[in-house]
Every structure is written in C-alpha cells, then in structure tokens.
C-alpha cells in the first residue's frame, strides 16, 4: 500500500501540515530529456511562431472568483485546439487555429486571499461584500462589516494561507509538471510561468515570469507579498539564475501604472543608475505591449502627430473604482524607449531597452484573441450580452469590461518550435507583437543592404549575413546611413495590409526627444498627395453583418528603406508598425450575434496591427 501511504502524506501536506520535515519534494531533479536533435520544420533562417505566455486559470484567485472552471491542463488543451468548458453560463471555448506555444502564468499570490479581495480585477467579489453590507438583515451586514474589518486589519501582515509554503509548493509543482506533460518538441511548446502582481496604490507593476525549461525551477514562486519592489524580483531572479534556472520577466500594462512602470526613478525615488539599467535589462528583455487591458504603445496625448495612436486604449488604473491615471509619461513604451536612450546618453545605461510582444491576460484559460471568437477576459463574460452590456450590476465596472480589447499574440522568430529556440528568441528580442492576428513582421538593419538583396528567394539568409535582426544594435556607422529591410505578410485567414511604418525616436544634440513616423509601404499603389497626406485605405466593413472583404489592401510588403535623416552623433531607435485594413471589432461581432445595433460608445471597426521589436543605434 505504498500508494495509499504516500497519498496520505501528500494529503496531509495539502491539508496544511506545517511540521512535516521529511517530505522535501524537489522538482529540480525531475527527469529532463535533453532534446538536442533538430525537430521537424527546423529552419536556420527562422520561422515565425505564435503563442501566449500570459494566461490565467482558476488557479488564479481572480480567475476563480470570476467563475473560471478550468485549470492549467485545460488551458494547454485549448491552445492545442480542443474545446474546453467556458463557464459563466456560456458555451465551450475553442480556438479556430491552434497556437504554437503557450504558458499558464497564474498569479503567485493565488493564496493571498484577503489581499486579493481588494483586487480590482475581481469586481464580483467586491460586489458580493457590498451586497451583504447593504442587507436589511443586521446580522448579515454586521458579519460583512466584521469580514471587511478583518481583511483590512490583516492587510499589512502576511496572509495566513500564504505562510503555508507546502501548499504553494505543491500547486507550483503541479503547474510545472503540467507544462512538461503538454510539451511536444517540434509541435507545441509550453513553459512554466507565474505572474508577480505588484500593485502599489492600485498602480500596475505586474510582470509575468517565464522559465525556459523545468531545470532548477525554484520550489516556490516570488510574489508581491514578498516584495512589491521590482528590484527585489530581479534580485530573486538573479539568484534563481545562479542556482541554474533559466528565466525572464515580461512587464505589461504600463498604461495602468499611472507612470510608475517606466518611472525615471527607482522604488526609493533615486535616479536610475547604470547598475539599475543593467539589472533591469538582464532580467526583462521584452515588454508586453498589447493585451486585453489595452495597448500601451503610445497615447494621443504623447504622440499628437500619430493618427493611429488612439488604438484600444484602456484608460484605468487597477482600482475597482475605475479611476483614471493622470500620468501619461512612464505609462507607454514609445516614450519609455526615448527616455531609455536619453538616460543612456547621460551615462546611466538604458533601462528600457525592450523588445515587444502582444499577449492575452485572459483569466479563463483560453486566450481568445480572435475578434470573431472572443469570449471575454473572465468566465463571467462568456456570453455576448454579458460582454456588451456588462456582467456586473455596476456600470463603472461594466464599462471597463466593454472596453477590454480581445488581446494580442506574441510572435517569435525561432529556428524550431522548442523551449530552447523560442526562449532564446525572446531573450535576444527577435520578437514582435500583434493585436491578435497572425500577421508576420521581419525587420533587419545594416549599412550594406541594397534593393538587390531582397530580389531573390534567399533574401532572409542575406539579411542575416549582412545586418542584424530586430532586437539588436546597429554597429558603428562609418559615414553611412542605415538601411533597413522591412517585411510583413498578412494572416492567411485574415485581413489585408494597409501600410507599414517605421517609427523613429531620437535625442538631439541639445538633449531634446523627437519621434517621427515614416510611411514606408502603402497598399494599393497609394502615394501621398501634394500636401503629403496619404489617402486612407478605405473601409469594406459591413457593420450590420460584421463582415469585410479583402478588396482593398495588400497581401505582403518587402522593401528596403534608408533613413534620410540619420545623424551618427544621435542616439536613436527604429521599430516597425504594420496596419491591417479596417475589420469589425469583437463588440461588432457580438452585436450581430445578438441582433442589436453596435454600441455608440465603442468603435465599430478597428485596424488590427503588429509591432516589431526595435533596432537601436548608439553613437560610438
């Protein structure tokens, strides 16, 4: 009966036995098959793979309270194309085209029960309390008050459940093992991951922490109850790396940080030092730019000349009171990229040298990023009427739900679909993000490219040989202006492309920041008019029927572009943005499903898009 015995022991661990010293379960010695062989589809010039690494399940406290009924195993099955229960009174969830990689990243604070009651992402639990408090039955309202008092009084202390490391260990171990179970090298890649959910004064500093493999994974994750200071997280990550783990962190939703995410000072208010910059970049090479809670590329207030800046803005801090942030600076990546080179120019390193991805942040196991297949962030939104009208009795929170985007996708250029290859791509920032479609973007920079280099089928190989891919640094200029190769192809099942743009940011000799947008490829043979204005691509969307045609736009762009304004003495960066033709927003598909008019307070159509990681130039 060895089985029953070990189960009783593990049962005791689960039940919270704190004094059991003989059950050190170490997941670091789990057998790891060394996959050195190349898998099918290996390509030294790299393939594009699409996936999500920011997914919550019922193991996240707010996933659970918002009625998610599925766990990590269901999440991986969903990403592989199987249908899973959606809960919330709606149907099953199924993706149209399976993903290449996926990582469940539940909140490390999953046992931080009382803390999470204050979590704005869990409006439902809040409202339940409110319901009790307003109850005509004095016993009920008193009890609710006592509950609140208790939660409040323990807010500063460590949560009781959290102190039980054995529970955290066993759940984390299960999450790591589930990732292994569903990993199929060459076909489908999984990563162990968790989210560190620091939220000081409702300002979002969240990071997803992704492990490159299951070797030497720490036995418990680091939560914001350990520290809310990102430097403490990086410290923990550095130590984990010393212990043999492979990991990186991905910050997200600077738009909900009220300027704190890309603040020009550290946690203590001191200016950023070169050591801070180095530590930050060693630990978090990429930033999640587009997800359900909005796109944080830039804001019209920051980029008044960018006619496409106003895209899926989710303009709230993480408070159930639906407060608006007041600081734009520090809240968007384009501005941070500029601040980064400015800090570097001042001799303190570049703390914001980020590559980019898109991701989901769904709390329903399923990253339903397809506009015509969106099933909400939480399970309580698993019915179109709940998404559109709101699942909650409170209009403020309903508006937040309605303004959710369908989320984005992470794109990586990797040799093969394996943990090592995809993780390395993220590490060297050869990544791109999309607002949810599978359009692909490549971006190379160098000084020796010419138009002939892209005229034959082997152009990608040439591009790698004669320059550097996105995420990298241009070498010394030697009197030349840099030339870039820009490539984009539409999603084969999706919408055509409107245009490709190069977005350049630089700091001039007097220390002033500049940004400029170059429209480098336009579909349908469009050219700017005499005033330099580009005619819009048009709009084929039939709003009532939530449909569009590909009669406008192009299938792909492949061009070279040389920066005519380059100055070898200026710090600068370049990234590519590719826009699709207008298509219906998820809310327009839902309106059609319900047979009602689209809401006037939401855009009926959107131009989905993709962003490359930047290429940087540093004066020698």
């Amino acid at each position, binding site marked *: 009966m060895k*089985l*029953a015995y*070990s*189960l*009783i022991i*593990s*049962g005791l661990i*689960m*039940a919270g*036995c*704190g*004094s059991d*010293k003989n059950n050190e379960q170490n997941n670091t010695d789990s057998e790891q098959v060394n996959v050195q062989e190349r898998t099918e589809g290996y390509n030294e010039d790299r393939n594009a793979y699409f996936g999500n690494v920011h997914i919550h399940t019922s193991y996240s406290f707010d996933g*659970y*309270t918002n009625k998610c009924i599925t766990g990590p*195993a269901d999440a991986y*099955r969903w990403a592989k194309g199987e249908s899973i229960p959606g809960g919330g009174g709606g149907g099953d969830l199924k993706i149209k*085209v399976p993903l290449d990689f996926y990582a469940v990243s539940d909140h490390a604070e999953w*046992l931080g*029960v009382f803390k999470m*009651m204050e979590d704005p992402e869990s409006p439902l*639990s809040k409202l339940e309390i409110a319901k009790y408090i307003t109850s005509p039955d004095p016993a009920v309202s008193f*009890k609710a008050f*006592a*509950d609140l008092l*208790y939660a409040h*009084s*323990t807010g500063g*202390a*460590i949560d*009781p*459940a959290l*102190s039980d*490391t054995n*529970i955290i260990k066993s*759940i984390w171990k*299960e999450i790591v093992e589930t990732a292994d179970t*569903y990993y199929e090298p060459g076909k489908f890649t999984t990563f162990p991951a968790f989210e560190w959910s620091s939220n000081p004064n409702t300002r979002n500093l969240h990071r997803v922490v992704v492990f490159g493999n299951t070797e030497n994974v720490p*036995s418990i994750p*680091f939560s914001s109850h*350990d520290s809310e200071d990102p430097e403490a997280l990086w410290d*923990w990550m550095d130590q984990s790396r*010393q*212990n043999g783990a492979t990991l990186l962190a991905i910050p997200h939703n600077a738009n909900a940080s009220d300027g704190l995410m890309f603040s020009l000072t550290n946690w203590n208010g001191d200016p950023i030092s070169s050591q801070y910059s180095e530590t930050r970049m060693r630990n978090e090479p990429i930033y999640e730019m587009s997800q359900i809670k909005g796109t944080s590329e830039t804001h019209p207030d920051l980029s008044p000349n960018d006619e496409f800046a106003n895209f899926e803005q989710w303009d709230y801090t993480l408070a159930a009171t639906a407060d608006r942030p007041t600081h734009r600076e520090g809240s968007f990546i384009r501005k941070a990229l500029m601040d980064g080179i400015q800090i570097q120019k001042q001799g303190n390193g570049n703390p914001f040298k980020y590559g980019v991805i898109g991701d989901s942040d769904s709390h329903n196991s399923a990253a339903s990023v397809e506009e015509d297949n969106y099933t909400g962030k939480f399970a309580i939104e698993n019915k179109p009427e709940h998404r559109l009208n709101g699942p909650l009795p409170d209009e403020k929170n309903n508006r937040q739900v309605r303004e959710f985007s369908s989320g984005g996708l992470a794109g990586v250029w990797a040799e093969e679909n394996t943990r090592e290859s995809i993780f390395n791509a993220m590490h060297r920032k050869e990544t791109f993000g999309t607002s949810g479609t*599978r359009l692909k973007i490549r971006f190379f920079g160098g000084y020796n490219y010419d138009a002939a280099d892209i005229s034959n*089928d082997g*152009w990608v190989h040439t591009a790698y040989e004669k320059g550097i891919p996105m995420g990298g640094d241009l070498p010394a200029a030697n009197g030349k202006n840099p030339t870039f190769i820009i*490539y984009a*192809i*539409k*999603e*084969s*099942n*999706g919408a055509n492309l409107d245009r490709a743009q190069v977005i350049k940011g630089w700091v001039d000799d007097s220390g002033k920041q500049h940004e400029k947008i170059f429209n480098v490829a336009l*579909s*349908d043979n469009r050219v700017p008019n005499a005033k330099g204005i580009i005619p819009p691509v048009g709009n084929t969307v039939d709003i009532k029927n939530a449909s569009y045609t*590909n009669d406008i736009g*192009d*299938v*792909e762009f492949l061009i070279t572009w040389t920066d005519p304004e380059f100055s070898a003495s200026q710090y600068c960066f370049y990234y590519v943005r590719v826009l699709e033709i207008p298509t219906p927003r998820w809310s327009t598909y839902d309106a059609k499903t319900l047979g009602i008019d689209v809401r006037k307070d939401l855009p009926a159509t959107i131009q989905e898009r993709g962003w490359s990681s930047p290429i940087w130039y540093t004066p020698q």
Partner: protein
Amino acid sequence: MGKFIKEPLFHFILIGAGIFFFYFLLNKDKSGDEIVIDNSVLYEITEKYQMQWNRKPTTEELASLVQVYIDQEVLYREALAMNLDHNDEVIKRRMAQKMEFISDELVATVEPDQSDLLAYYEKNKSIYKKPAVYTLTQIYFSNDLHQSAWDVASHALQQADPRLEGDRISLPKKYDKVGADKLALDFGSSFAAALDTIPVGEWSDPVRSGLGVHLVYIELKELEGFFPFDQVKEKVKNDFNYEEGLKFRSKLIKSLLGKYKIEVQIPESDIRNAILENI
C-alpha cells in the same frame, strides 16, 4: 480486491480518515489560548525564507518573522473564534479547491494499463487523426498585381511550363512532405481543404487561398489517416488521465452528495424547476 484498490474513491475515504486521525493526535493536548513557538515553527519560517531568498534569515530577521507569525496566529484564532471563517466565500472556495487537488492527485497516481489505453484510443480515434501530407509545387498569382489573378492563372495553365509563370511571394514554391495543417497556416484553411480534391500528378485548375490564386502540382500525397497507437501513446495516456480526472471529480461529488439532503426552499418558479433539474 485488485479492482477495489484501483478505485480512487476508496483511497479518498482512506485519506480522509488519515487526515482526521492525524489532526486528532496533533491537537489532543493543545489548549485554545496557547501559541507555541518551537523548533518546528522556526524551521518552517526559516525554510520559507531560505526558499525565497536562498539564504537563512539573520537572528534579527527571524525574530521579527516570528513576531509576524504570532500576530497573525492571534488574529487567525480570534477570527476562528468569531466564526469569521464561516460563510466566507473565499475560504469556501479555497477549501473546495483543496478537495479537488486531493482528488486530482489520486487519479494521477493510478497508472492505467495498456488495455485501458488501447480501448481509449480505439474509442476516441478521431482525436488522433493524422492530416494528409503533401509534396507539392504552388505557383502564386497576386490580386494586388492583376485585375483578375484568376484569369492570369488560367492563362498560365496553358503555357508549356507553369513553373515559369506566376508572381513573387515570400513563401516557398516547393513544399516537401508537409502536413495539411501546416499548409493551412501558410495559405489559409480553405486552400488546405481544397488540396484534398486536386488530382495527384497533374496541374490543378486555379485555387483560391487567403493570399490570392494558385496553380498547384501535387507530386505525392499521403492520405489522411490516424497516428498509430505506439506513436501517440503518451498523448493517449494524458488524454485518458484527463478524462478520468473529470469523471472521478463528478463521481466524487455525487457520492458525497449522498451524505446530504438538499432542501430547495424556494416557491414554485422557473428558477426552482431549473435548480431541481440540476440536482
């Protein structure tokens, strides 16, 4: 007996008894108003600190952590005394989740044998479908370059070698032993579906894709089929365990439900009927 021991429900009851007995022993001589700080408490706090920070806490740090522990224990016990744990949605969910973890762990440790897996494989064969595999050449005609890519493709079909015709696109002309699922990613689902109707060994009529129009020459085609059991055994095992887990969970709830009488004290209404139907 063998069958009985393999039954997770049996173990579940056994474990329940074990946990009860353990706590009975543990709590026998503990009075309610005593908070003991002994080596096991220090060990647990130290161990947690070590796990997080990769070093032992200093004496000072340990002492302040113990103070946190005491404060928390006091509040926790008071809360229990005030019955604050009762009817707390959060605690209820957490406890229910713990039960689910125990039941999941149980199922995971019951090793299915070969015959279980084979039977599962046969019964759910559609999951183990292998897509058709093609070796083909595709020639692309762009809607962006021609008024009618379809007409240009039709014209190209009349030429001596259609391979020399067509427009440029950044996708391979030649695909060597590639699955229909991968082709669907490059060209769209409708194109991959259309391949199935194209005869092998001759140029196709024009075919539409998500990118434009194509002429296709299929050299080799391996028909759609099923992955043999040996090739997908691991996956079958995962699927089997997954389904057994779901089954066991609902079985467990049903058997536990037997211990309770559910009284629906709601006047005759739609909601009453709906609830009764579910029970």
